[in-house]
C-alpha cells in the first residue's frame, strides 16, 4: 500500500477536498493507498511515498523525500487522474 499526503495551508479544508478526489481517482484505478490530509509543516516532518498539493504550496515542501505531485484544479478529476497516471505507478 502506498502512502499519500494531501497538503494545504491549514490542513482543515482544501486538503480534505483534495483527499476526497484523490481517493476516488485511486479507487477507480484499483490502486490501494492510504491518503492523509494535513498542513505543510506537519507534512514536512512525515514520511510518505507521494505528496499531492498545489503549485502555491509546493515550494515549502521542496527537498522532501516523497515524490511531489502538483494539482492546479482540485475539482478537475481528469487532471487528478492524469497526475496520478504520470506519477504513481503501482508496485
Amino acid at each position, binding site marked *: 500500500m502506498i502512502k499519500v499526503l494531501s497538503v494545504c495551508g491549514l490542513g482543515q479544508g482544501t486538503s480534505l*477536498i483534495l483527499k*476526497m478526489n484523490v481517493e476516488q481517482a485511486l479507487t477507480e484505478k484499483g490502486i490501494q493507498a492510504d491518503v492523509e490530509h494535513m498542513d505543510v509543516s506537519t507534512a514536512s516532518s512525515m514520511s510518505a511515498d507521494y505528496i499531492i498539493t498545489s503549485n502555491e*504550496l509546493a515550494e515549502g515542501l521542496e527537498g522532501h523525500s516523497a515524490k511531489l505531485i502538483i494539482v492546479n*484544479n*482540485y475539482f478537475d478529476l481528469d487532471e487528478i487522474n492524469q497526475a496520478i497516471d504520470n506519477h504513481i505507478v503501482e508496485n
Partner: protein
Amino acid sequence: MRFLEKGLVKVGAKAADAEDAIKQAGVLLADAKTVEDVYIDAMVQSFQENGPYFVLAPHIAIPHARPEDGVKEASVSLLQLKEPITFGHSSNDPVQLIFGLGASSSEEHIDLLKKLTQLLNKEENVNQLRTAASYHDIKTIIEMEENK
C-alpha cells in the same frame, strides 16, 4: 450544518480586492451566526500568511481558517462577484465565486465538503453558478445536484 442557504449567499456582489472578498464571505457566515467575528480576521490572516493556495480551481476560492478560530457550526457561504478579481494565483485567476468555509472539526464538516466537492466537480455547475442572476437560480443548481 448550514450549506448555501439563502442568508449565506450574496449574488452580484462587488469587491475591491481579494481581502475584501474574503471578508465579505466571512461576514455572510458571521451574520448567520455560524462563526464568531474573529473568524473573519483569521480567514484574512491565513491568506496573508499562506497565500492564495485556496483558489482551488479556475474562478473558485475557498477561504477559511481553523475550527478553533471561532466556528460555531459547520457552514458554507457564497459570495458571487459581478466582476471577477485577481487573488494572485498562478493558474486559477480571476476569481468570481468565493465560498467562505466555516471549518468545524465535526463529522458535519466532512459531509459539508463532500456536498461542495460534488457540486464543484462539475464544470457546468460552476459555469451556472457564475452566471446565476439570483438566489433562486443558485438554489435550483444546488437542488438539481442533490437530487441526482
